[in-house]
């Protein structure tokens, strides 16, 4: 099934147009990191505007064109573009490609003892689709009118009547969605078909389970959005009006469309994707954190079946909660009660997963490595993100909190201090396997504490702002009386964000410096049990020297009577 991976392939075939899952995984990972950094830079510009509205951006303000920042002052349309593109880039070009494309591609075949993905060429196609979609997204900054500026949610009619950038955004999205679809099919088939001998489903490392559930979410949630994207393209280009009701009057002029559409339809289709998408961001992160916590606690995972069950249930429920994003669209009581109930139900598996992970620590022998720092920090951050979801899931409290900074705080706690810390944990943890060298510990710890503190400095004040009623997506928040007393928090958050940016440079330095100068790593540097550590370092084409055979569950640590405190799965 797998491709010929012979070393006779030329340089380009080995590094750029490779079909080896590890090379594709690294391509996804590195591209994702670059996009993440770019999305972060957009956000740093927004944070300048929020801290000092009405003041020109010093130094770099002059680098921008007169149509976006005349005299270094940010125009509202540019602010809106930054917001929409930051959101889109972070979600669709940064975190998902890193978590699924990067970690999933690299690790899943290794952890299940397979030589490659089931369809290596499809895998490459999925990466290139993503790459093209990403490049299309970025070029949109240069089209007349600038990049998309209707929010990452692109609600029509605003998005239907927006500038050309929106069309480019839609083309980009269609490419990205296609890429995810191709990828998810590949993951599902690989996990079902290519597991090593003896590797039953209940011997899979939890990370593989997490990727498995994630793939189903991608497979089932993306088609509706892909369809919706195409419909919106037709509204914009072909004069249809799927999302436009009759009788619209824009800037005093009747809009020349046939009408008869409904803007709420878009929201249903969008959130039907975008809620499961949250779990696409979070599940792989949970998978990474679980592997790292178990390895560094030196004891089996508390309640393996419980956590697997909880994540399956989480995946299933994630399709039944989408309309809790739409309480303010005019929903009646019966249907809103339904979505409030499902939303409360979905909080339960999250509570269970967190409980399982802390209980795993009990009775352990915890090693505080750098990846363990990041993985442990994920737990309280995700807890805050999850708990602040409760008042948003109750329609009555959502009346006050909807569309305020509280929402921004809530989901960033899940995706930034939560998921991003988990992804960093994963990079530090598997770096020795991929490169044969460790990353520097001291730099890693400074990176950790700097990130941890600054992330909280950026996001915690958002809850305070939200309770005070401060609306999100405002170019000049100080216009509003009730936001003026809170302007100090905006300044504080912006400094936290910029320092956070500086701290990330330590990571970049560490990443490249360690490639050449890092301490050499053996095959199984953390004394872990799962199959990826049973390969040579770095793993060669085809992964395993001889086909592995699995004899036990994934986390046999500290088994009584054994000399070593771990027994690899293939022993």
């Amino acid at each position, binding site marked *: 099934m797998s491709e010929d991976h012979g070393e006779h392939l030329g340089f380009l075939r080995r590094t750029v147009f490779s079909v080896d899952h590890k090379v594709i995984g690294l391509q996804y990972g590195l591209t994702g990191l670059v996009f993440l950094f770019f999305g972060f830079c957009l956000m740093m510009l927004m944070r300048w505007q929020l801290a000092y509205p009405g003041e020109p951006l010093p130094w770099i303000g002059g680098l921008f064109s007169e149509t976006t920042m005349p005299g270094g002052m940010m125009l509202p349309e540019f602010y809106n573009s930054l917001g929409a593109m930051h959101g889109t880039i972070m979600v669709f070009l940064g975190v998902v490609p890193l978590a699924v494309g990067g970690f999933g591609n690299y690790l899943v075949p290794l952890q299940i003892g397979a030589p490659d993905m089931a369809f290596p060429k499809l895998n490459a196609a999925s990466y290139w689709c993503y790459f093209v979609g990403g490049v299309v997204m970025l070029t949109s900054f240069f089209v007349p009118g600038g990049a998309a500026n209707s929010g990452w949610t692109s609600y029509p009619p605003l998005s239907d009547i927006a500038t050309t950038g929106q069309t480019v955004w839609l083309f980009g999205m269609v490419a990205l969605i296609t890429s995810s679809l191709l990828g998810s099919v590949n993951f599902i088939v690989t996990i079902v078909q290519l597991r090593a001998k003896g590797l039953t489903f209940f011997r899979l490392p939890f990370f593989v389970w997490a990727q498995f559930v994630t793939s189903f979410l991608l497979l089932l949630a993306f088609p509706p959005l892909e369809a919706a994207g195409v419909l919106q393209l037709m509204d914009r280009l072909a004069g249809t009006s799927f999302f436009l*009701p009759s009788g619209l009057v824009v800037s005093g002029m009747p809009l020349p469309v046939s009408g008869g559409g409904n803007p709420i339809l878009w929201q249903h289709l969008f959130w039907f994707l975008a809620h499961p998408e949250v779990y696409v961001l979070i599940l792989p992160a949970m998978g990474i954190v679980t592997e790292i916590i178990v390895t560094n606690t030196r004891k089996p995972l508390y309640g393996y079946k419980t956590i697997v069950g909880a994540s399956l249930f989480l995946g299933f429920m994630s399709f039944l909660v989408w309309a809790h994003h739409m309480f303010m669209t005019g929903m009646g009581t019966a249907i809103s009660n339904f979505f409030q109930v499902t939303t409360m139900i979905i909080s339960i598996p999250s509570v269970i997963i967190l409980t399982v992970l802390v209980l795993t*620590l009990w009775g352990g022998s915890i090693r505080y490595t750098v990846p363990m720092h990041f993985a442990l920090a994920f737990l309280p951050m995700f*807890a805050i993100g999850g708990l602040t979801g409760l008042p948003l899931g109750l329609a009555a*409290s959502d009346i006050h909190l909807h569309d305020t900074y509280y929402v921004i705080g809530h989901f960033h706690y899940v995706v930034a201090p939560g998921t991003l810390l988990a992804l960093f944990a994963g990079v530090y943890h598997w770096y020795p396997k991929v490169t044969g060298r460790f990353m520097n510990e001291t730099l890693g710890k400074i990176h950790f504490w700097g990130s941890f503190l600054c992330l909280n400095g950026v996001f915690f004040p958002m809850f305070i702002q939200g309770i*005070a*009623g401060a609306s999100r997506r405002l170019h000049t928040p100080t*216009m509003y*009386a009730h936001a*003026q007393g*809170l302007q100090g928090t905006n300044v504080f958050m912006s400094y936290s964000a910029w320092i956070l940016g500086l701290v990330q440079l330590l990571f970049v330095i560490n990443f490249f410096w360690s490639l050449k100068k890092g301490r050499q790593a053996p095959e199984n540097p953390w004394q872990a049990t799962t199959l990826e550590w049973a390969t040579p370092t770095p793993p060669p084409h085809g992964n395993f020297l001889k086909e592995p055979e699995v004899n036990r569950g994934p986390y046999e640590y500290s088994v009584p009577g054994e000399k070593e405190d771990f027994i690899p799965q293939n022993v």
Partner: protein
Amino acid sequence: METTGYGWGFPPSLSTQSPAIDQLINVVHWFAAVLFVGWGLFLLYSLIRFRAKPGQRASYESAKSRLPKYLEIGVVLFEIFLLIGLSFPIWSKYKSEFPREQDSLVIRVVAQQFAWNIHYPGRDGVFGGTDPRFISDADPIGLNPDDPAGKDDIVSVGWLHFPVHKPVIAHITSKDVIHSFSIPVLRVKQDAVPGMVVPIWWEATQTGQYEIMCAQLCGVGHTLMRGFVSIDTPEEYEVWMKEQESYLETQPGGQL
């Protein structure tokens, strides 16, 4: 415009429904805080107590305690209470249990980029018909000039006046894109969706002048889409109505 009473914590709470909403938000946060602190202390304790020490191995057995199970059951029960005890009643009061129209002030809110048009039915209590065809600079909501019911209608742009202690029923809609009609001090929020008319209601408990915000991104001027509410005493409200009516008389179409 009042600028006092704002700052950290909730904005002033000026409607009959806002105490319940604030209370719900407070209860959820106390619940979250207790859970988080308890869980966090357990986490910290485990991290310190079970750090690796030379010569000591982890135990293969997992922790045995029924506590997590009780905790999870506790969370479930409390969430049921949040739903049935607090959220459902507040929401259905806001969404379904409308006051009688005779006892209320009934208005229409027509959002547009980037302004709030408030349509009052006037003395006859009947809204004049509207149609997008009639929209012009002079008439932002498109009142039908041939409809007698519309002759005494008042359209106020950016200012929403209403009397204190009297329910207000507002029918929210939009001419162009989706906006969101939000008055933080009243704990009122409703998306203004073109093609849809959604009624909401509130009753203010104090007079004063406050902001209306647009809570949904609606384009370049989104930040500027600020309006004002003036919660008047009945006398002040009457004075304001009179002013509007005398203004109408100077207009060609309007007559009383």
